[in-house]
């Protein structure tokens, strides 16, 4: 216990202070409890607006990453090739992978022109089946070969190398390899005219190391450019090129989608704010009798304004909190339905939603208040 002497004055001061504060709080609470119907509808409008705003902002931020992932199914966006058709240095793949650091796939390719037993030239490629499967989703393969001496044969190459479906021989610089067509490959492009072998088997047979690495790197175009830059640094003897066809197409479609989503988000958030404005304005206007009674009992302009402003601010905060949770749920649901992956909640959106909610709530309180302030309390209490 404090031993300081308690003068009547200090007690009165403290009491008046505490009464003041507790009265203020009680008025706030009672206002919400007594008019729960109206308060609930105002809160509901606030929550819905905050939820829709949160969902749209979350989507807008996250959709780019989601769509980028879809765009990676277009395959490689960077190619690493030896200068003038030379082979790549033996550590090229390892270096490429270390630059990527898990943010993409790198697939090596080696090519030779071999001859069939009938003397027909055919391009034979060595690659890594597992990686190529992850890189080029559009390859339509009847069956991936699994054993030795099994090849993946392009649709158009098949009649040339193995017209009757029997095993066939391919020779390159005097070395012959005996193969069976374990599966066929269809892409509609140059791959259809080739025969694919696993890299190790290809190297044992031909002795030719990889000449191309196709890289599908994930990230924005700035990320891709940075990766291209770092690859050219660690591999100074080779050509590193972005595949412009893929990079530019992606940037274009993504840009348009984002712009549309941006326009939609602005429209939706504006509508939601409008809804809050309409509801809250009505709510405050409805309570002009409270306003009049407070003034008649001697409350100052500042106190009354402070009271209504506090009410609006609390509504804004509670609405923003609840709305944020609901909005994250909506964004996650849209992510799951549309992209089969939930949208990661962005908590950085919360301050924006919070400030926006409070601002809209205060704005909706100020408009009717400035109207009410001009009116004498007696007139309102008389009911006119």
């Amino acid at each position, binding site marked *: 216990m404090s031993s300081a002497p308690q003068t009547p004055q200090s007690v009165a001061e403290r009491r008046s202070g505490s009464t003041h504060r507790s009265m203020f709080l009680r008025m706030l609470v009672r206002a919400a409890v007594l008019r729960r119907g109206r308060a609930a*509808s105002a809160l509901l409008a606030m929550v819905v607006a905050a939820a829709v705003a949160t969902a749209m902002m979350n989507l807008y931020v996250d959709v780019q990453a989601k769509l980028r992932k879809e765009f990676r*199914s277009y395959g490689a966006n960077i190619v690493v090739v030896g200068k003038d058709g030379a082979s790549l240095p033996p550590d090229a793949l390892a270096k490429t992978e270390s630059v990527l650091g898990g943010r993409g796939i790198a697939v090596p390719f080696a090519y030779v022109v071999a001859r069939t037993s009938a003397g027909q*030239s055919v391009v034979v490629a060595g690659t890594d089946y597992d990686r190529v499967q992850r890189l080029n989703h559009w390859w339509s393969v009847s069956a991936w070969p699994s054993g030795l001496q099994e090849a993946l044969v392009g649709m158009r190459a098949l009649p040339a190398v193995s017209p009757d479906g029997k095993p066939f021989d391919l020779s390159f610089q005097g070395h012959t390899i005996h193969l069976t067509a374990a599966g066929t490959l269809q892409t*509609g*492009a140059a791959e259809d005219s080739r025969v694919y072998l696993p890299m190790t088997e290809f190297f044992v047979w031909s002795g030719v190391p990889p000449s191309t690495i196709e890289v599908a790197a994930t990230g924005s175009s700035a990320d891709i450019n940075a990766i291209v830059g770092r690859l050219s640094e660690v591999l100074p003897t080779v050509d590193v090129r972005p595949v412009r*066809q893929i990079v530019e197409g992606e940037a274009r*479609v993504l840009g348009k989608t984002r712009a549309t*989503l941006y326009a939609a988000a602005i429209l939706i958030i504006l509508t939601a704010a409008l809804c809050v404005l309409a509801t809250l*304005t009505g709510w405050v206007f*409805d309570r002009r009798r409270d306003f009049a009674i407070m003034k008649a009992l001697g409350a100052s302009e500042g106190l009354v304004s402070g009271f209504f402003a506090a009410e609006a601010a609390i509504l804004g905060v509670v609405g923003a909190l609840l709305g944020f949770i609901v909005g994250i749920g909506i964004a996650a649901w849209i992510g799951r339905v549309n992209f089969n992956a939930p949208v990661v909640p962005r908590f950085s959106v919360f301050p924006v939603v919070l400030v926006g909610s409070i601002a809209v709530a205060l704005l909706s309180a100020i408009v009717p208040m400035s109207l009410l302030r001009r009116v004498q309390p007696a007139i309102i209490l008389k009911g006119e």
Partner: protein
Amino acid sequence: MFARLLYESFRRQKRRKLLAGVAITLGVAVATAMIAVATDIGDKINRELRSYGANLLVTPQEDTLDVEIGGVNLKPPSDGNFLSEADLPKIKGTFWRNNILGFSPMLPVNVSVDGSGHAQDATLLGTYFARKLTFGKDQFTTGVHSTNPWWRVEGSWPADDSEDVLVGEHLARKLAQHPGDAIDIAGQSHRVAGILSTGGAEDDQVVAPLQVAQQILGKPGAVRRVYVSALTKPEDALARRDPKTMSGALWDRWYCSPYVQSIAYQLQEAIPHSHAEQIRQVAQNEGTVLSRIQGLMLLVTLAALFASALAVSAAMATAIFERRREVGLMKALGAGNLAVAALFFAESTLLALLGGVAGFFAGSLLAHRIGRSIFNSQITIQPVLFPVILAIAVIVTFAGSAAAIRRAVHFDPVFALRGDA
């Protein structure tokens, strides 16, 4: 009496009616714009996806195997079959001609290039840049300019009837060529119109008008392959079926749908001795990307509809709640619940119709602006959208006012008039 009540209500409460009307107009405008954008975005994004280049490849039917590594052709150039250039305009005569945005014929020839004293073997690619063709009465322009939008030229594009060429940027660096220089190709001098950068195999090649390549090869009218860029419908179960096993009606449906498969089939019909195939890298991925973006816009549109419905009903509820005293007076004068409700509903309907019409036009304008600024093209608004939007506006306004009207009707007139409600 009813009509007069209604009229006076609008005449005397202009400000309040205006406020509710503005809320409805804004809500309907947002809904209209979002529905218009969402229904049209498929087509718009489909066109943007065409910037990935051709999705169909037409080759001679009995072609020999391609022997090509990294864009360098290792096959004797006169080997194999060719398509005839004269048949190409027929591509614009197929059933889905309006979906075919462009095509580029290609004829690669191996040549020796000599520029500023450096001689080297390279591939010369003959093609159309922006060639004007006619089929029947139709005039159209086609070539790599439209099918390969990622090709960039420093200098200028050669004219299709000139002897000028483009030199790929890697080759140009090796041969120290600049736009405007002269280059010797297969013993003949050509002007370098520009330096081409594509990020692909063409960076090491010379690209020339088609007839230059035909002349070097000594085969006038020959084309090795044709890249076709077409707007297609995402693949579904019907698209994947083998057309040979289909019954008559089903086959008609397949043939008359713009699937990449059926367009390939029609190209084969149009060009004699040809084989058309989808380029799976481009064609297969289009569908997924398109459906994702369409799905996204659909869900966002739902959110927009929800938000605007809420805004409209909030505005209506507020407008009605403020008029309790009027209700009290009407009831004190002997009006029944039904009469009061009917008046309010009539007012809401009128407001909804007025706001709906204004909102529809404002929304069309908004959609138009969005289309212009984002896609540089018109967003078409189906006329059928108008009654739909109007119906939605009336329903939402009704639903929004229903609860408020119900409450207003149940006020005790005494309390309402005393102002205690």
